[in-house]
Structure formats: structure tokens, C-alpha cells
């Protein structure tokens, strides 16, 4: 029964259901509003859990695929000649595979937890949850879309609610943070759009012959599969070598020269690098981490940053495996720079949120390393690192929110000895810290270990430097977290109440997932097993190994 | 005249044209002198006076004497006047007045320029005089002159519109703007002349023409009681004379134009009167129009300015347009078949 449903659409759009209900609720009834929103986020979680259970890694996600025409804008066909149709064909194409499934799960889990954490929001609950649910729709869509423009639409859809969530409910400098967020991500998505437009107008072109009839359908398709196939198939018109006597690309408007391929790849790298964020483009993220409300940062740090890595993998690496492979070293170096830069700066921060922000940069560096390895282990490591960092940072910011609610500060110098008054929260914080610094048995370790292991295969020196960074992680995490939990306690914090049930539930749930992945990483690696095969095959073909 | 027109232009021919022009100029100057004389006489008789009777026999040299006086009178230009424009204005008024005479045909064979847009030429050039009058009023730097000039301009442009539209009916019937063709096209019998079929147009044309001439009952720009002497209050001597000259040359021109457009030009009123030369018929009709102008001057009082403007815009203009469409419908029904 369940399998007859368009399950992916249901996952994406079920939050909208909640949004509809929210619209008709009076805006003073905070309890109703909150309950509705939490339920609305629970539906996709349950659906995605079911999907996970139902997912068969050997068959891939083919059975869940949804495909229908979204935009079929016919073009003037007069001058082309005898064709029966000529159009822009963008599809409503959803699909799931080993790459998206873990991130989908991550999104739904963090979504529910953030919704739970949002009960702390002090004002304008109605509009908060409306934006929140819209944001969730966008995130879910990003991971499931299989059409470049559908992807772009969902990607942008995350942008606008985030702008509102930061700008209205954030801390003191919220507007500047919101602007900065908008500006950087706007530039990022604009660059992405340029790349997509270039791709669709060349590699997206397809001519379908209708069998048995004299009909040709020409179309520019946004389909991920079509583009990827055209780009990677050496025989396709995109790669067809032009006749020797003509100028490069003459007569074949779809030919992608080497420069073009590289420029598209670099554009994609840049676009997703900003989102990830890669070292020089990271400043917007710090602002967001510092200024956005904690529950929004949970989403942001937990899911939105992953969209960058996901996009880099799916569009950058899968579409241009050759170019990506050629730039593996660069990617790795960027990763190391991220790790070291993030770690060193996290070490000197005086604000706990900023420590976490820099640690995010550092951890995202590890993802880059995993991608740069270009082998199964490394890529799996990157994916696990993505999920694990999502969970851990969501948990950490949840705790930050709770602490801030009680103490009114996130300055490291203000906080101290909270273990005495807030034993439960402190305990969770410590565990989360351990997970973050990669203690074996917790999820962080698996991700880091696999990524570095994968990279060690090809780039040993870089791996060695990266490990140095990982050691630094331990230093700054311990410095800050131990400082908060132990040490001298300020008198005014003596009478604080420990976590309420509504806080404890998400903390424990997140921690449980962290533990689960740490102890039994196969929950994630299993569905991914065949996800990278095709990619690695192509890369190896290309590189000739 | 027609034979020379068809020849190739040489200096000799140009000289002949020039001489003809000079002859006409002399005739016109003579006409002006004696038109003024007769105006005074006619009005005198109508008012049971004798009119000028001292200079020469029956006062025939009165106007000549006046001209001599004007010629020898001191010419003052006010200090505050805009000198260049002040000097330019009378000449500018006079040039178009004389230039329009080029297109008027007198008989079948006696005409000067035979332009196929003759009527348009007349209308276009006569409009320039308005500018001269405004210019004269403005350049004098005098309140009376300025207001007189503005009034005059307002009046002239207001009546120019009905004047111009009233002849459209004639143009439609003839299908030409050539004054010679228009005169020729009118029939042999006097009821076939344009003034009967185009009676509305004719009446409007005459009224508007009188107003264009700034003559009584439409002589408001020069209303002595309000504006002293209007736009030429600061002019004296021969510069003043040129404004007067302009007015009377226009009298000549309008009288000739009316004859050509509405009164059948040189045609005799009936075919059996053809033995009398065309030029005589033309002069008779022409003289009648001139006399008519003197006659209404003696008869009618000056009207108020609001009446003047109201008449032009609210009565004559709609009537003129109505006339155009009546003509069109008439032609549609009876002529074009």
C-alpha cells in the first residue's frame, strides 16, 4: 500500500500540509502552533524511515523514482526544419540513491529535533513555523531532485526562509547576518545557475526519434541523467571531436571544448564551495552561526552545509569525473586548509558558538578530503562525515540553545562549572564533544577515519598534515567544553534547572543516532554500497587505471 | 505671360519677369494711394460729409501729400525698444503682403506665377504678417503696443482657422489648389460661381477676411479708446507707413482672392456678356469687394473682444467644418455618382 504512493513527493511536500494548517490557526495559540509544526516534521521523518527500511541497496532507488513533465515549453520550430516538437523540457524528477538517502534521513531527523528545539522561540511563532516548514520542504527537495532546475528551485527555496529565520528571530546583529547570508548564497546560487544554464544548453540537448514514425523530438532537458550521460559518454555529441579541418566546435553547437568543461566544473566547484564553505568563502557562515537562533543553526549547520557537499559530489564530481580527478590534489589541499584554519581559529575563540562554527569549517574540510580521495572508502567516509557532523553539530547547537536560555550567555569566560547545576545537559555536551573530536565508538570517528584512510591511499603527505589538524580538534573541543562543564562556577548559575523533557528528548535521540553510526556504521554504508561504483568506474576508465 | 513661363529661364526672361513685378508694384502702390482716398471719400459721403477736397482737384492728391509727409517726418525709435526687431517688423509685415500677389490670376492669360499650390502659398505667406505684428508690439517695449500686438495675433490666428477651412469646399469642388484652375473651373453663368454653391463658405470667408485685415468691425488691435493705437503706437514716419501699406495691400489681395475663389474670376455673369473683356469683369468684381469693405467700415460698430473670439471659435469654425462635410456629402450624392 505504502509503496503505491509517490513516496518521495509525500516526503517533500508533507511539511506543506502542516503549513496549510498553520495558516488557519490563530497566531496567539502558541501551543497549537508548535504541536502542529512538530507533527508536520514528524511525517517526513516517519516516511523516510520507512523508505530506509524498504530501500534495497542492490537495486538502488529505481523503484521510488518519480518522473513527470514539469515544464514543457515548446520553442519555435520553424527554422529547424522537419521536427515535430522542439522544447525546453524540465522534469519533475525525483529519485533516491545511496548518496541522497543518508542525507534525507539526516534532514528529517534534524528537522524534527530543530522543531522540538524551536519551542524556545519567544515571538511570532506562526510565521516562524511557516518559514521553518518551507525551509524543510526546500531541503528535502534538494536531496531528492534529479533535474538541475528542480534542484535549483529547491536550493533557492532554502535561501529565502533562512533569510527570514535569521533576520527576524536572530540575535543582535541579525540583519547583517541575514544580508551576508543572502549575498554569499545568492552569489553561489547565481554561479550555479550559470553553470546549469551552460550545461542544459549543451549537454542537455537530446533528439528523440519516435520509432516507426518520421518524428523527431528535439528538447533541451534539465534531466540529471541525460546531462550526466552526455557528459561522460565519450561518443556523445558533447564530446565528439570536431572535424580536423574546421575550427573547434564549428558546426556542432553542443560541443563542449576543454575550456568550457573546465569552466563549468570550476563554476560548480565555486558555487558549492561557497555553500560548503571552503576556506576563503566561509565568513558568512560564522555570522550565521553567531547570530541565528539556535534551532535555526541546528538546521543550518546540520543540513544546509551538507547541501554544498552533496551538490559538489553530485554535480561537480559525478558530472565531471575527469576534471575532478585531475583536481583531486587541489581539493585535498583545500580540505587541509579548511581543517587547519578552522581548528586554529576555533582554538582562540572566546565565544562558544564561534568555536562550533570554526569547528564546522574544520570538519567540512574532512569531507573535502574524503571526496578528494576518489576511492570507495574515502567517499563513504565523506558521506558518513557529512551525516555525523550534521547530527553532532545539531546536538551541540541544541545544547547551546538550552544553555543560552538559562544563562543568557555563550561567552566561554562567563560559563563554567555547569556540570554541577546542569548535570544532564553537561553530560550530553561532553559526549557530543567527544563525538566531535572523533572518539572511537561515536560517529565522528568513523567519518574521519574512513576519509583519511581513503586519502592515505593516494596522498600521504596531505593526509599526514590533515591528521595534525584532527589532533588540534581534540585540543579546542576539550578546552571549550571542559571549560563550560567544569571549572569555577559563577554563583548566579547555581539555581539553574536542568533539561526539561522537551529538551531531553531531542538530545537523547540525536545522541542515540550518533552512537548508532559510531558503533554500527553499516546502517549508512549499506545503502551507499553501490552508489559510487559507477562513478569510480568512470574515473578509472578516464584515468586509465 | 503664359508663353514666357514655358520658356527656358534666361537672364533676359528674368529681367522681363522683374519688370512685370515692378509694374505690378507700381499698380499696387497706386491702388493703395487711391483706395485710401476713396475710402475717405466714400465714408465721407455716407456720413454726409465731403471728405478730402483741398489738395489737388477734388482732393485727388491728398494721399500723395500724406505720403510725402510721412516720408519727411522724423523717425523716432524709443530708447527702450529692441532696435533690430523694431526696424525689422514693418518690413516683415510688408514682404508677405506683396509676395502673395504673385499667385493671383487676373484673366485667362494675365497672371504671374502659376503655382499648383497657389492657395496654400497665399495662406502660408499671409500667416507671416502675424509674426511681424507681434514682433512690432514686442519690440516697442510699450504696454499698449504689446497688448495690441498680442490681441492682434490672437485675433488673426483665431480667424485664420475658419478662413482657411472655409475655402476647403472650393478646393474640393475644383480638385485643385491652383488659383487659375479654380477660377477657370467656375461656370459661365453667375449662379455657377462658387459663391452660391458655397454660400456658407463664402460668408465665412468674407467675415474672416475682414477680421484678418484688422478692419472695422474687427479693428480691436487698434482700438484708439483702449489701446491708443495698438501695436504701432511707437511707430512714426515711414515705418508707420509700411504698416498702413501692408493693410491696404492685403485689402487688394483679399479682394482679388475673393474674386478668384468665389466670384468666378474673369468670367462674365452670363455667356452672352462674353464680349466684354475678362479683365473688366475682374476689375468690376474686385472693385465691388473693395467698396464693400469701405461700406461695412462706415456702417458697423466695433465689437467687443469676447464677442470677437466667441464668433470666431464658436460660430465660424464649426460652420466652416460643417461646410466641408456638407460639400463632401453633396459631392458624394450628386457629382461622383
Amino acid at each position, binding site marked *: 500500500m505504502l509503496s503505491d504512493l509517490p513516496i518521495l513527493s509525500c516526503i517533500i511536500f508533507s511539511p506543506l500540509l502542516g503549513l496549510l494548517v498553520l495558516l488557519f490557526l490563530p497566531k496567539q495559540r502558541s501551543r497549537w502552533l508548535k504541536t502542529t509544526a512538530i507533527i508536520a516534521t514528524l511525517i517526513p521523518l516517519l516516511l523516510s524511515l520507512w523508505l530506509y527500511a524498504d530501500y534495497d541497496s542492490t537495486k538502488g532507488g529505481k523503484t521510488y523514482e518519480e518522473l513527470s513533465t514539469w515544464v514543457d515549453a515548446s520553442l519555435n520550430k520553424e527554422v529547424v526544419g522537419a521536427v515535430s516538437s522542439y522544447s525546453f523540457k524540465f522534469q519533475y524528477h525525483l529519485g533516491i540513491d545511496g548518496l541522497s538517502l543518508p542525507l534525507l534521513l539526516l534532514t528529517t531527523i534534524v528537522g524534527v529535533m530543530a522543531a522540538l528545539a524551536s519551542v524556545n522561540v519567544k515571538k511570532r511563532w506562526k510565521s516562524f513555523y511557516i518559514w521553518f516548514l518551507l525551509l524543510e520542504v526546500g531541503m528535502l527537495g534538494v536531496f531528492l531532485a534529479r533535474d538541475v532546475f528542480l534542484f535549483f528551485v529547491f536550493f533557492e527555496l532554502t535561501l529565502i526562509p533562512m533569510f527570514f529565520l535569521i533576520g527576524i528571530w536572530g540575535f543582535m546583529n541579525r540583519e547583517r547576518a541575514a544580508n551576508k547570508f543572502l549575498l554569499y548564497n545568492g552569489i553561489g546560487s547565481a554561479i550555479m545557475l550559470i553553470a546549469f544554464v551552460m550545461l542544459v544548453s549543451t549537454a542537455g540537448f537530446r533528439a528523440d526519434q519516435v520509432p516507426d514514425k518520421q518524428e523527431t523530438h528535439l528538447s533541451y532537458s534539465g534531466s540529471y541523467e541525460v546531462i550526466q550521460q552526455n557528459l561522460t559518454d565519450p561518443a556523445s555529441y558533447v564530446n565528439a571531436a570536431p572535424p580536423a579541418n574546421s575550427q573547434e566546435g564549428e558546426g556542432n553547437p553542443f560541443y563542449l571544448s576543454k575550456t568550457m568543461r573546465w569552466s563549468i566544473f570550476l563554476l560548480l566547484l565555486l558555487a558549492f564551495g561557497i555553500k560548503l564553505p571552503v576556506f576563503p568563502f566561509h565568513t558568512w557562515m560564522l555570522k550565521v552561526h553567531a547570530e541565528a537562533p539556535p534551532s535555526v543553526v541546528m538546521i543550518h549547520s546540520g543540513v544546509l552545509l551538507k547541501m554544498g557537499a552533496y551538490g559538489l559530489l553530485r554535480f561537480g564530481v559525478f558530472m565531471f569525473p575527469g576534471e575532478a580527478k585531475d583536481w583531486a590534489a587541489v581539493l585535498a589541499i583545500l580540505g587541509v586548509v579548511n581543517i587547519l584554519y578552522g581548528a586554529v581559529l576555533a582554538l582562540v575563540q572566546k565565544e562558544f558558538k564561534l568555536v562550533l562554527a570554526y569547528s564546522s569549517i574544520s570538519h567540512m574540510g574532512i569531507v573535502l578530503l574524503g571526496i578528494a580521495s576518489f576511492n570507495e572508502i574515502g567517499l563513504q567516509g565523506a558521506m558518513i562525515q557529512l551525516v555525523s557532523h550534521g547530527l553532532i553539530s545539531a546536538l551541540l547547537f541544541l545544547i547551546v540553545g538550552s544553555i543560552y536560555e538559562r544563562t543568557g550567555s555563550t561567552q566561554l569566560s562567563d560559563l563554567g562549572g555547569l556540570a554541577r547545576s546542569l548535570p544532564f545537559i553537561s553530560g550530553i555536551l561532553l559526549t557530543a564533544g567527544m563525538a566531535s573530536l572523533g572518539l572511537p565508538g561515536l560517529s565522528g570517528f568513523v567519518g574521519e577515519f574512513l576519509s583519511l584512510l581513503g586519502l592515505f591511499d593516494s596522498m600521504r603527505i596531505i593526509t599526514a598534515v590533515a591528521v595534525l589538524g584532527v589532533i588540534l580538534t581534540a585540543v579546542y573541543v576539550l578546552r571549550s567544553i571542559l571549560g563550560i562543564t567544569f571549572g569555577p562556577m559563577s554563583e548566579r548559575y547555581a539555581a539553574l534547572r536542568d533539561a526539561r523533557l522537551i529538551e531531553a528528548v531531542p538530545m537523547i535521540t540525536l545522541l542515540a543516532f550518533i552512537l548508532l553510526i559510531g558503533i554500527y556504521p553499516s546502517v549508512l554504508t549499506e545503502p551507499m554500497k553501490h552508489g559510487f561504483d559507477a562513478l569510480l568506474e568512470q574515473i578509472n576508465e578516464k584515468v586509465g587505471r | 505671360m503664359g508663353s*514666357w*513661363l514655358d520658356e527656358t*529661364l534666361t537672364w533676359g*526672361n528674368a529681367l522681363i*519677369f*522683374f519688370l512685370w*513685378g515692378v509694374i505690378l508694384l507700381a499698380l499696387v502702390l497706386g491702388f493703395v494711394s487711391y483706395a485710401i482716398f476713396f475710402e475717405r471719400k466714400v465714408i465721407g459721403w455716407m456720413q454726409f460729409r465731403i471728405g478730402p477736397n483741398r489738395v489737388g482737384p477734388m482732393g485727388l492728391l491728398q494721399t500723395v501729400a500724406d505720403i510725402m509727409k510721412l*516720408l*519727411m517726418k*522724423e*523717425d*523716432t525709435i*524709443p*530708447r527702450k525698444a529692441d532696435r533690430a526687431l523694431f526696424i525689422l517688423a*514693418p*518690413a516683415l509685415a510688408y*514682404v*508677405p503682403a*506683396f*509676395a502673395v500677389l*504673385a*499667385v493671383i490670376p487676373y484673366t485667362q492669360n494675365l497672371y*504671374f*506665377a*502659376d*503655382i499648383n499650390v497657389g492657395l496654400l502659398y497665399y495662406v502660408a505667406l499671409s500667416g507671416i504678417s502675424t509674426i511681424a505684428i507681434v514682433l512690432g508690439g*514686442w519690440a516697442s*517695449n*510699450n*504696454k*499698449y503696443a*504689446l*497688448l495690441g500686438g498680442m490681441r492682434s*495675433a*490672437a485675433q488673426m*490666428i*483665431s480667424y485664420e*482657422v475658419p478662413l*482657411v*477651412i472655409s475655402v*476647403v*469646399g472650393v478646393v*474640393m469642388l475644383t*480638385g*485643385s*489648389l491652383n488659383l487659375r484652375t479654380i477660377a477657370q473651373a467656375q461656370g459661365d453663368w453667375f449662379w455657377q460661381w462658387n459663391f452660391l454653391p458655397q454660400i456658407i463658405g463664402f460668408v465665412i470667408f468674407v467675415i474672416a477676411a475682414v477680421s484678418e485685415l484688422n478692419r472695422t468691425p474687427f479693428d480691436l488691435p487698434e482700438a484708439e479708446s483702449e489701446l*491708443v493705437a495698438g501695436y504701432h503706437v511707437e511707430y512714426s*514716419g*515711414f515705418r508707420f507707413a509700411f504698416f498702413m501699406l501692408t493693410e491696404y495691400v492685403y485689402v487688394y489681395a483679399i479682394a482679388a482672392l475673393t474674386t478668384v475663389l468665389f466670384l468666378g474670376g474673369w468670367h462674365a455673369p452670363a455667356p452672352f456678356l462674353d464680349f466684354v473683356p475678362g479683365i473688366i469683369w475682374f476689375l468690376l468684381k474686385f472693385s465691388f469687394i473693395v467698396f464693400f469693405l469701405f461700406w461695412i467700415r462706415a456702417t458697423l460698430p466695433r465689437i467687443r473682444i*469676447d464677442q470677437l*473670439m*466667441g464668433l470666431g*471659435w*464658436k460660430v465660424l*469654425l464649426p460652420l466652416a467644418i460643417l461646410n466641408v*462635410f456638407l460639400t*463632401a*456629402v453633396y*459631392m*458624394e450624392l450628386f457629382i461622383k455618382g
Partner: protein
Amino acid sequence: MERYINNYVIVAIFIILGILLPVVALSVGRLLRPSKPTEEKKTTYESGNEPVGEGQVRFNVRYYLFALMFVIFDVETVFLYPWAVAYKQFGLFVLVEMAIFTGLLLIGLLYAWKKKVLKWNSI
């Protein structure tokens, strides 16, 4: 062609004569007339009183409105004349077209009338 040129030569001659007459007359007059300017002679004439204020006074804007009306209807005649000349050769539809055109202008006249443009008051 000759006729065409000749006609305009005549027109030119008439214009030249028109210019010559004032030039000659005024030049000749200069020899005949006296010239004894005094301050009083050169003051602006204002019925014998000392002139008050500027000579170029502001006058009623109504003059401008008449100028505007004139422009509108004068331009109408620009179209009316060619139409009238060629009227015989065309069908009824041309009459309708001109009726529409003129009708629109008459609406303009009505507009001016109703907006009291044609009503004259003071100077």
C-alpha cells in the same frame, strides 16, 4: 519643368521686390527726414505720463490657449487640404475617415469650450 522653375523665379522676384521697397524707401527717407532726437522723444509713449514699470508686462495666459487651439486646427488643415484636393478620386470611406478625424478635433473644441478656454476675461 521650365514652367515649374519659372513660377518660382517669379515668386522669388516678388519677394525680392517686397524686400527692396522698404529698404529703398527707408534709405531714401533717411536723406529727406530731419533727425533731432531729444530725451523726451525717445521715452516710451504712455499717454504723456512718465512710463510706469516695465514695458513688457505679463499678459493673460489665455493668449497662449488660443495659440494652442490655433495650432491644433491649423494642423488639421494640413491634412484637410491634400484630402480636399484628392477627394474626387476616392470613395465614401475617405469621407468617413475624415469625419472621424475632424470629429475628434471637434471633441477637442467642445472640450476647450466646456473648460472655458474660449471665454475671454480681462486684457
